[in-house]
């Protein structure tokens, strides 16, 4: 009886770990998709409303999917609280905050940092161009993350379950 219960526990927890790992892949895909939406919102704030950056980022942060929120909310907070901080530095802090939520590769972070360097420091047309370019690149990342998800999601689910089963078999 206890053996059976133990076996279920091991299988269950291994399976859960697998699901958690595979969900990260899904989250990454979503993040890249929603970031593109977020940049569209930012573009509206910049080009139609001429909203200054701290307020614009805050507004986008309120509207956007909650997984992407840390990026915009943190960047806005850094800009508001610290005098003399550059938009690039604030955006970088936002990217780091996002990195705590989902794992980002060095290249992905780099891409977002580069976007930050162009943020705020030029006329509207240039801002719009910078946003459009980054959106394109995010789209590529989204596609890559999608493929990764298709490849790895199932694998992790099966693998974790199988490992669980192996452990149970060994213990029995």
């Amino acid at each position, binding site marked *: 009886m206890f053996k059976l219960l133990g076996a279920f526990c091991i299988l269950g927890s291994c399976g859960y770990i697998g699901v958690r790992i595979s969900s990260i892949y899904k989250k990454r895909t979503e993040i890249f998709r929603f970031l593109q939406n977020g940049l569209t919102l930012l573009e509206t704030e910049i080009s139609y409303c001429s909203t200054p950056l701290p307020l614009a980022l805050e507004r986008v942060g309120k509207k956007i999917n909650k997984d992407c929120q840390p990026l915009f909310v943190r960047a806005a907070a850094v800009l508001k609280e*610290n*005098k003399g901080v550059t938009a690039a530095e604030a955006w970088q802090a936002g990217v780091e905050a996002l990195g705590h939520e989902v794992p980002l590769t060095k290249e992905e972070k780099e891409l977002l940092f580069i976007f930050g360097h162009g943020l705020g420091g030029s006329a509207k047309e240039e801002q719009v161009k910078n946003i459009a370019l980054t959106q394109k690149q995010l789209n590529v990342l989204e596609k890559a993350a999608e493929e990764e998800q298709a490849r790895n999601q199932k694998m992790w689910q099966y693998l974790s379950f199988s490992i669980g089963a192996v452990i149970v078999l060994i213990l029995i």
Partner: protein
Amino acid sequence: MAKVIINREINKESNEVLSGIATFPLKVSSLTWFQALSPHLQELVIDGLQSFMSEIEEIRLRVKRPIIFRVGDREMTVTAQKEFTLQLEQGYIITREEMERTVQILSQNSLYAWEDEFKNGYLTIPGGHRIGLVGRGILEQGEIKTLKDLSGINYRIGRQILGCADEVLPYLVKKEQAYHTLIISPPQCGKTTLLRDVIRQISEGIPELLFPGMNVGLVDERSEIAGMYQGEPQFQVGLRTDVLDACPKAQGMMMLVRSMSPGLIATDEIGKKEDIEALYNALQAGVKVITTVHGSGFEEIKERRNIQSLINWRFFERIIVLSRREGVGTIETIIDGKTLERLR
């Protein structure tokens, strides 16, 4: 985090500084210009110029040249060691980096949001202070598109002196009507400050003169009178005042007459031909006008091409001349525009 704490300490100190000086009522919120300086310049001001904090009228930053503060008629500076001095050449030298950081703070890292302001060469910050800018112009089809490589910034610190118009108001209103008024003044003599207080009192009503108050339309072409920042006037301009911010005077006056039915239209620094036409139009709509003009005296203004016709036509019923003779805002004389007699 450290920066936040510094800011808080500075706020506390400036409170103390202000409470020590009782020349005219000042609130801490009137130190908003201070928040628009870079942290390093804030330190310089706090350490070197603490006792002048409430009297600074202008701060000039020029790349590779010393920072200069104007207090009344005097110019002063602060050395890199944060010491006060009147020897301007010993002052702290503004670096290009310092300049760029200041622009970032002024624009909130959002140059795109101030395109028009850069084109015009000035912007208004919270508190209604005006920041003048110079640099290298970028042209598009012969017109200035924007400025780059900013080389000079001038903080013009706006002050509101409630009640500074008390002396002139008895001459400007009669029963329930205001007179067409022209304020003549050289630069830096408190022309805008006086106009602002006249507007506020006429808008709110003056119990001592049994004047009930009337709707005032204010065309604030350079965002100087009301100091509009994101839709909120930063100075008290009265509860019956509608502000048309950053609009050309002539167009703005006509817009106000049509849209808000004001009893009085106020505007700053007329002089162009179309301004004069707009004044005539306002007159025909039965609206009173109060405005200002740059000039050292009535005699000089009489010679000006566009203003001349208004004076000869006896458009203005009251003409106030300001000077700096006994300090900023000295009322030199008040003239009845119809009879050209001195009333004061």
